[in-house]
């Protein structure tokens, strides 16, 4: 049965977690107190509680994804703990909230297909969140991603991503017949009737607006990528990703010409060295950190991550750049293992899509999984200078409340889809 397999999968996660925390504690015992180790215990307790909840509410759900998410979060908390124990405490609180939302969804949205009836509302909320961000967000590092309210700051984009995926799943599921017909051709590519290209152009326009208004190549690439992946799944036609890809490239070139921030990001990507103390500082220091890791890393707690005053050498090390810290301390071996964990996670996600037997579920699972792939690729590719850098979190690993909460929400949906599929099979 799935839940027993899940419990078995948790054992290595707990073991790795204990070893990790113990080694951080051992190397940095001068700076951190033993009491903070209790976060490790709390972490294990939380996931076991969620596991018990799944036994009751979604007994047939995929047995691999929750342990994988737990392992990724464990690696994240461990690194954050190593960087700053105070932040690790905060991250543990965010994790509690994230798992709380996860539990709520699992309990109250067991029949998640009801969401199909509310997709327009959800889609509008998703877009509104983005608009709010554009209007009210403070500019941090040239990009407008954060909303500040009271003592809080949230990244609405993380939630918007999930909501718009749900909307697209419903919308594309109802319209996929129409989008799949072709009445004319461009360069041998079959094209749907012009009026059905509308959503494609709208989505492109929205992504491009995001790019221009938020100054953020990564977020717009993420949204547009999810959209293209889902239209491709819905229609089975390569026409959409190909035309979409060309549109995106055109938009990116335009943005490069129009927006100084985008231009700076791209120029810094091409050659960060002349401005290594200024605009290139973050990526250059990230590369130094990654390079220092070598094959096996410096060992947890032994990397050169902090200055004497406790601030990180790479700015935003605990959030967007957490992978640089992992690559330095765990080396190529550890960092590759982490990438493979993400690959496994996405594999399970796509598998859930393939196994499910209705269009909405398939599109939703594929969309959420594609979102995880793209987000991981955008930030990992960014910090290792494979693609231009963009500020976005590494799902489950980075420090950040919005990211953790939204991603556990998305995970809950995936598990509900698999629960339903597997329950039907056993019936």
């Amino acid at each position, binding site marked *: 049965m799935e839940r027993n397999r899940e419990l078995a999968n948790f054992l290595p996660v707990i073991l790795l977690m204990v070893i990790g925390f113990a080694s951080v504690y051992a190397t940095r015992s001068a700076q951190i107190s033993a009491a903070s180790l209790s976060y490790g215990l709390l972490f294990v307790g939380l996931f076991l509680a969620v596991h018990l909840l799944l036994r009751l509410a979604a007994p047939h759900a995929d047995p691999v994804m929750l342990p994988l998410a737990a392992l990724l979060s464990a690696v994240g908390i461990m690194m954050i703990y190593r960087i700053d124990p105070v932040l690790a405490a905060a991250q543990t609180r965010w994790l509690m909230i994230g798992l709380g939302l996860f539990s709520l969804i699992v309990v109250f949205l067991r029949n998640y297909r009801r969401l199909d009836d509310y997709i327009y509302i959800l889609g509008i909320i998703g877009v509104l969140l983005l608009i709010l961000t554009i209007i009210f967000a403070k500019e941090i590092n040239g990009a407008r991603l954060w909303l500040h309210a009271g003592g809080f700051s949230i990244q609405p984009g993380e939630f918007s991503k999930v909501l718009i995926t749900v909307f697209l799943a419903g919308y594309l599921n109802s319209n996929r017949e129409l989008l799949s017909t072709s009445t004319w051709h461009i360069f041998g590519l079959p094209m749907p009737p012009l009026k059905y290209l509308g959503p494609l152009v709208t989505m492109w326009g929205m992504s491009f607006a995001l790019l221009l208004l938020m100054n953020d190549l990564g977020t717009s690439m993420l949204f547009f990528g999810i959209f293209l992946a889902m239209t491709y799944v819905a229609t089975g036609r390569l026409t959409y990703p190909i035309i979409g890809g060309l549109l995106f490239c055109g938009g990116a070139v335009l943005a490069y010409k129009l927006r100084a921030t985008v231009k700076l990001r791209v120029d810094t990507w091409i050659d960060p060295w002349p401005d290594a103390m200024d605009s290139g500082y973050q990526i250059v220091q990230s590369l130094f950190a990654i390079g220092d890791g070598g094959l096996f890393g410096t060992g947890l707690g032994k990397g050169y991550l902090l200055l004497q005053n406790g601030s990180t050498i790479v700015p935003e090390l605990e959030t967007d750049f957490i992978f640089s810290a992992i690559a330095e301390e765990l080396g190529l071996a550890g960092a590759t293992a982490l990438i493979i964990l*993400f690959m496994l996670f996405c594999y399970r996600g*796509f598998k859930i899509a393939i196994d499910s037997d209705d269009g909405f579920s*398939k599109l939703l699972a594929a969309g959420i999984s594609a979102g995880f792939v793209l987000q991981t690729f955008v930030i990992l590719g960014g910090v290792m200078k494979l693609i231009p850098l963009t500020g976005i979190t590494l799902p489950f690993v980075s420090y950040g409340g919005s990211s953790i909460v939204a991603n556990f929400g998305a995970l809950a949906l995936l598990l509900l889809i698999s629960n339903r599929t597997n329950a039907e099979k056993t019936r």
Partner: protein
Amino acid sequence: MNKPVRNLFYVSVIMFASLILMLGYRQVIQASDLAENPQNTRKVFAQMRIERGLILGSDKAEFASNRKEGDLYYRDYPTGDLAPQVVGYNNITYGQVGLEHSQNKYLTGTADEVELVNLLDTVMGKEKKGADLKLTLDPKVQRTALGELQKLGKRGAVVVLDARTGAVVAMVSSPTYDPNQLEENWKVLNSDPGSPLLNRATQGLYTPGSTFKMITAAAALESGDYTSQSRFRDDKGRTDIFDGFTVNNYQKESFGEHTLEEAFSKSINTTFAQIGDKLGQGKLVEYMQKFGMYEKPPFELPSDEMSISGRYENGELLPTGDPMGRTQVVSMAFGQEQLLVTPLQMALVAQSIANDGRMMKPYVIDSIADYNGTIIKQASPDVWRTPIRPETARTEKEMMVKVVNEGTGRGAKTSKVQIAAKTGTAEVDGRGPNAWFVGFAPAESPRYVIAVVVEDSDAGGGISSPVARETLLAALGL
């Protein structure tokens, strides 16, 4: 709908694979390049876990010591701004310069001689420690020289050498800075037009002016065509060396009939112009090379913190064979014409005159001892080159005594000791001239050599003489 999902997964695999490949490139193939990048402070950081060796003055005063914070060692420079251009700094943000840079292997205990001891100790469970440097710098002399320059409120440099060994007793560059406060002052230090970070003694390039006559006179005496008593005439304060080229004396002063010795002590340009014209470019350049110009001095500072003395054009050193016109050769003979020298270079010229024609290798590290106190390296005075014969040196020495007793160096005269010297006032475009004083004391049996340069000295050449006198007296303990 399953086929597109599968394809999406394949695309994902390609994306993840490209991430892993890139990561492998960064962490394996590019790793050493990244580690060697000068902007990467990781190496300095790694070394901060090692207790660095101390840097001590000749009186065992600490120029550099350690302070432990957490598990890292930080450098303290108890002498502050006394000799940062020589001692250098070791800073996590700004890297290393000076002896902290060039002697890093000894200071961190990674030099071969120290490594073995450390290895044994590591096996025994002891912590790795660096070796201590004992310098030849005498803080008392250093402080006097720096104080004299600061009193003038001028930029400049002082080099004091042991006349017999070549040991650097003082090396001062003003304005100076406090290496304990780099973080606070970094921007100011880098934008300060006085360039406090620059070691003027070894990096500063100055027109030598009349001090170059030490080299011209040596070439003249050794050519066999001149003795110190060779006679010259100067009636108008200016001389037509050849058609259309006239050389003036300083302030067009006229000296009448005089000897080479007098021409030297009174710094008569017209006479040295005639000598230069006769010697020609070949002889002059030959002696410049004999005295160590056109070469980096064999000194312990990092190579990029030392300049080569010679003829320059637009900041580039000209090759020795670069063809010169007759007027250029003549002007060079009295120290103008694209010539640029470091104060250390001029100190070495005086040192070889003081030491019977033997130029000693300059050095500032007396000994290196591992932390058990065992000496692993001891300086042994070493002849670098022999530019002139002993009798030439003795003749020039007498000429230099006259400079102080009756000539342009009277400002340095003191009843306590006989000083010998050559002064110089070198014109600089757009600013006041540089005032030089290069000499040694006691003249009869020289112990210390000094080179002083004071920039922008509107008060004239005499401004550097008291600096030299006070510093020499401090060195001699008088």
